[in-house]
C-alpha cells in the first residue's frame, strides 16, 4: 500500500523532512543495487554506490523539481555517480576482471548446471559490451524501464532509445554465443 507517490515523498524530503526518504529507499534500493551490480560486477562497490545515491538525494534535495518523476531524477543521479566512480577506477584497472566472482542468488538446489552456465555466459557477455550499450541494456531489460522513461533519463527520444536497445541486444547476443 503506497499512501504517497514518489514525487510527494521527495517534495517532503526537499522541504526538510529527511525521514521521508526511508520509504523511497525501501522502494528503490534493491533496484539500484542491481543496476550497479550489472555495471560494476562488485557487491561492495554496488553497496557504496547505492549509499552514495541516497546521500546525494539528501545533499541536492533542493534541486529536485517536482514536475519531473522522482525515478528519472534518481537514475540520473545514479548514472552520474557511476561515471564518477568509473572515471576514478579507470586509472587503476583497465576493465572489470572479476566477472566470474559475481554471486548470483541461488537457493534452488535442483537448478540445472545449464542454467548456471548460461547465467555466467550472460554476465561475461555483458562485461564485454561498451559501457554505453551495457547501461541502456540494463535500464531496459534488467530494470524493466520503458523506452520513454529511459529517454528522459538519457535525454534522448523514445525512438533513439529503441534503436540503442536493439543494437545492444544484438551485440550482447553475438558476444554470448561466442562464449556459450
Amino acid at each position, binding site marked *: 500500500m503506497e499512501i504517497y507517490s514518489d514525487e510527494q515523498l521527495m517534495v517532503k524530503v526537499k522541504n*526538510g523532512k*529527511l*525521514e521521508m*526518504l*526511508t520509504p523511497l*529507499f525501501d522502494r528503490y*534500493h*534493491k*533496484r539500484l*543495487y*542491481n543496476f550497479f*551490480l550489472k555495471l560494476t560486477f562488485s*557487491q561492495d562497490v*554496488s*553497496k557504496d554506490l*547505492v*549509499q552514495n545515491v*541516497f*546521500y546525494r538525494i*539528501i*545533499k*541536492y534535495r*533542493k*534541486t529536485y*523539481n517536482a514536475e519531473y518523476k522522482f525515478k528519472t531524477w534518481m537514475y540520473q543521479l545514479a548514472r*552520474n555517480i557511476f*561515471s*564518477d566512480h568509473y572515471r576514478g577506477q579507470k586509472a587503476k584497472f583497465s576493465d572489470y576482471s572479476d566477472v566470474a566472482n559475481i*554471486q*548470483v*542468488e541461488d537457493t534452488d538446489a535442483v537448478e540445472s548446471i545449464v*542454467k548456471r552456465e*548460461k*547465467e555466467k555466459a*550472460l554476465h561475461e557477455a555483458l562485461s564485454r559490451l561498451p559501457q554505453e550499450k551495457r547501461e541502456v541494456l540494463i535500464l531496459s*531489460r*534488467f530494470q524493466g524501464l520503458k523506452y520513454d522513461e529511459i529517454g528522459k533519463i538519457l*535525454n534522448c527520444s523514445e525512438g533513439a532509445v529503441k534503436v540503442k536497445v*536493439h543494437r545492444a*541486444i544484438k551485440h*550482447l*547476443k553475438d558476444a*554470448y*554465443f561466442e562464449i556459450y
Partner: protein
Amino acid sequence: MKDRDIKELLIDLIDGNLTDEEKVVLKERIASDKNIQREYEELKEILGTIDEQVEAEPEESLRLDFLDMLESELDELEKALEEPNDSKVKVIGLRLTTPLQIAAAVALLIIGGLAGIWFMKSNTEDAELAIIRKEMEVTKQLVMASLKNQSSASQRIEAVNASYELSQFDDEITDALINTMNHDENTNVRIAAIEALSKFSNEEKVRKALIASLGVQKNPLVQITLINLMVQMKEDRAVKELENLVKDSETIQTVKDEAQMGIIKLS
C-alpha cells in the same frame, strides 16, 4: 521485406509488439529462411536468459548504513536550525527595525487599499481586475521592501516565495530577485531566488541574468541548481559559462561533473 528489416522486427516479435498481420508475415519468413530462423532462436535464447535473471538481494547492512547516514544528516539539519544564521549584532539590528517594518507594511497595505479604492471608483474597468491589480501591487511592494531591508534569512525566503503570487512578469521585482540571487549572503535565499526567477525563464532578461549568474556563484549547491536549470531550459548559450566552471580550479569535482553533463546535454 528485406532481410535487414526482418531482423529488426525479430526483437519486437519476441517482445510481443507486432500486429497480427506482421506476425504472420514474419513467422512465414522464419519458417522458410534458415538464417533468419537461427537469428530468431538466438535472440529468443538471450532474451529468455535475461528474463530468467533474479534480482540479487543486497546485504542487510546496506539498509542499516542508510539509516545511520540519514540519522546523522537529520542531526546536522537540526543543529543548523537551532543555530541562528545571523550574528548577535544583527539580531539587535533586526529588533530595532521590526517596528519600522511593521509600520512600512501597514502603510503599504493602506496605500494598496486606497489605490484599490481609487481604482474601483475612477475606473470603468472590471472591478475584479482592479482587485487583482491591487493585490499584485501590495504583494509587490511587500516583496520589494523585505528584500531590500535587513530582514532575517527566513523572512527574505518568505518574500521571495511571495513573488510567486505575481503571475505576470514585473521588471522591478525581477531586478530585485536578480540582485538577491547574486548578492544575498545566505545560500538558501539565493536558491529560492533562482527558483522564483525560473518561473519567468521565458523572459530574455531573466535568461541572461541566470546564465551570467553561473560566473558569479561560488557555492556548489547554488551552482548545481543553476546548471540543472540551464539543462531544463535547454539554454545552449550557457555552454561557455559551464566550460569556465569546468576549467576553474576553484570548482569542486561534483560541480565540474554536473557542468560536464550539462555541456553534453546542451551541445
